[in-house]
């Protein structure tokens, strides 16, 4: 740990701590009441508050999506005017990206799980953690304010010069909301990096770090490097509207393409903020439910970092037809192909992990299967879009819409749901209904494909995105897509219902229902206020299924600050732990 030791190996006396199966007090029974929740600095409760918030935003964004799809049932106007339609898709996109996907895994699940996996009591800066939640709330309030004072119809990308001069509504409130939101994201990333560096339990070396944490680490790096650029971009955009500073507005001598550079310098890496934590979840689940050591630990860990890095070099593939120089087009197209490499490495390693494992298709693992299938399609179509000539045909068509829904919903939302089911017993202390879990997963899978597969087809036939009317020849695809979206919606609704039901009526969850070797499962379900009553000591990696469970339950009894260095008398074992 943080103590300075001359050698790398340190001998500590440990004994076994079996997780308490029937904890009388846990983080949910302590510090109760609304005020205690709102002022809590406990990472688990903050995780819950995020989870609640993103669930609300997911519901709002989802309802908006269903409205959009319903409008598209007929080629002519069905319910909404063109203006209303523009506002709907803008809000849908902005809410889903900024208010749901970006915070979904890191801030909600990550907050809960990260300290548990590290074997520490909390993140490094608990108060900053709470602050980041409230910043998120303030950002959300600004967005609500924007909606009720005219709405926004620029698309979630806020492209200039439309956003800076022509667009009506309240663009400023919206961009300011997203600006504020960025700080929440930054603070979460900052907190996680420091926590992972400084708060690891004794023995938890980098080569034993769970892959979920490697993924969160890579994500946090993107968050701190990319988000500030979004912040300054949106600030400049706000200033453009407020003072006409003329940096992006061509009418004043500025350059709208520069806006796109700045925006995508954030937003392409941001798609990896959205997906990389999902990769982490997949690694955890796939190893647990294959009962097998993860294949290619370092390949998976480092490919997360590689993705984080390469993700910064490819933003211009969103601008192939925006008027950037041919040289830039060429370079960006080439670099875009590189992203496929680390992503492919991950997929292969996951498949190899399952090979000859004893696979148990419980709900989380089912979601992993869905993920592997859908994300691979999303990734491949991304590579196709990255091909310069192909993209000139496909840019701004439904093909792009299908691509990013396959990665963001087919990839990330599936990973999120997988993670949610996986950790649900830990978070709530209750089991959900396994049968309903599987049925819903199947419905989601069918609904999703019915919604988005037709979009690839109509996109390649030339159906442009962001149109509320269309040529009659596309109606068949649109109708299919709309009915698919209803099925998808039903699937999500069922998840919400049986998960909520399980909180009140579910069976009590054991401490380690999946027999996982990872650290978080060695705490009781739900964990006590300070996660562990002892200081965990780690001697094996989290995927060492060939080692007996007892060797994953070692620790030293707590002292003054929980992680005391003094030896306990009832030790049963001496281990050598790298510091």
């Amino acid at each position, binding site marked *: 740990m943080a103590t*300075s030791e001359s050698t790398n190996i340190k001998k500590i006396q440990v004994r076994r701590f079996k997780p308490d199966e029937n904890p009388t007090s846990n983080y949910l029974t302590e510090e109760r009441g609304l005020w205690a929740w709102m002022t809590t600095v406990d990472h688990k409760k903050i995780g819950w508050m995020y989870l609640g918030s993103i669930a609300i935003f997911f519901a709002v964004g989802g309802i908006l999506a269903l409205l959009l799809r319903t409008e598209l049932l007929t080629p002519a106007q069905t319910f909404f005017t063109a203006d209303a339609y523009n506002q709907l898709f803008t809000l849908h996109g902005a809410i889903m990206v900024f208010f749901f996907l970006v915070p979904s895994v890191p801030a909600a699940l990550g907050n809960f799980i990260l300290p548990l996996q590290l074997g520490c009591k909390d993140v490094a800066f608990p108060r900053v953690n709470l602050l980041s939640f409230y910043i998120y709330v303030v950002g959300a309030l600004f967005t609500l304010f924007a909606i009720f004072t005219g709405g926004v119809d620029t698309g979630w990308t806020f492209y200039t010069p439309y956003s800076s001069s022509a667009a009506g509504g309240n663009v400023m409130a919206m961009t300011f909301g997203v600006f504020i939101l960025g700080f929440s994201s930054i603070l979460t990333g900052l907190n996680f990096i420091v926590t992972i*560096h400084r708060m690891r339990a004794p023995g938890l070396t980098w080569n034993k770090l769970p892959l979920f944490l490697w993924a969160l680490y890579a994500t946090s790096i993107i968050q701190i*490097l990319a988000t500030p*650029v979004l912040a300054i971009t949106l600030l400049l955009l706000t200033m453009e509207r407020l003072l006409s500073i003329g940096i992006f507005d*061509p*009418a004043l*001598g*500025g*350059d709208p*393409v*520069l806006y796109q*550079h700045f925006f995508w*310098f954030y937003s392409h890496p941001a798609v990896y903020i959205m997906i990389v934590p999902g990769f982490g979840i997949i690694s955890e689940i796939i190893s647990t439910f294959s009962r097998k050591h993860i294949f290619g630990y370092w390949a998976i860990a480092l490919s997360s970092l590689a993705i984080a890095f390469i993700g*910064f*070099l490819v*933003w*211009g593939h969103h601008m192939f037809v925006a*008027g*950037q*120089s*041919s*040289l*830039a087009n060429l*370079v*960006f197209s080439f670099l875009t192909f590189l992203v496929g490499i680390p992503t492919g490495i991950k997929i292969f390693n996951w498949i190899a992990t399952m090979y000859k494992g004893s696979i148990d298709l419980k709900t989380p693992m089912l979601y992993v299967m869905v993920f592997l299938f859908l994300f691979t399609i999303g990734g491949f179509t991304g590579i196709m879009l990255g091909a310069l000539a192909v993209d000139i045909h496909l840019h701004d068509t439904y093909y792009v819409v299908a691509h990013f829904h396959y990665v963001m919903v087919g990839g990330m939302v599936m990973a999120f749901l997988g993670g949610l089911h996986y950790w649900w017993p830990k978070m709530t202390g209750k089991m959900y209904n396994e049968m309903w879990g599987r049925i819903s997963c199947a419905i989601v899978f069918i609904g999703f494909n019915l919604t988005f597969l037709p979009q690839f087809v109509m996109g390649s036939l030339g159906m442009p995105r962001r149109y509320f009317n269309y040529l009659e020849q596309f109606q068949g695809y649109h109708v299919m897509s709309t009915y698919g979206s209803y099925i998808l919606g039903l699937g999500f609704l069922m998840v919400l219902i049986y998960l909520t039901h399980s909180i009140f009526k579910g069976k009590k969850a054991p401490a380690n229902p999946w027999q996982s070797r990872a650290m978080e499962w060695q705490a009781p379900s739900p964990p006590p206020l300070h996660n562990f009553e002892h200081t965990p000591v780690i001697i094996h990696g989290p995927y060492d299924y060939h080692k007996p469970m007892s060797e994953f339950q070692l620790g030293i009894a707590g002292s003054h600050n929980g992680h005391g260095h003094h030896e306990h008398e009832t030790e049963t074992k001496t281990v050598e732990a790298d510091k």
Partner: protein
Amino acid sequence: MSGHHVSSAKFLWGVAIALLFLTYVTVAVTWIHIPEPWNVVVAIAIAVVKSAIVAAFFMHLWWDTKFNLLLLITSIVFFLILIGITLLDTLYRIDPVPSF
């Protein structure tokens, strides 16, 4: 607590004087009118040296864990990526100046 570096007052003053001297230099070179691109290069070079001095000695990076230095370097590298690749576009447009 161990390992916290304490700089002597003399040393800190020395650092400040070096910085002030470099400030003088950076102003002084504008008097001799170095030709284009080189005037920019010199100005930036001096600013980089000054910043490096501040970071190393006032911000204790010299004695600090290497990771904090790595953070600083990372931020600079990513800034260079931002501007470097953007310039690949803005410098090589057919019509480099939007003529509105």
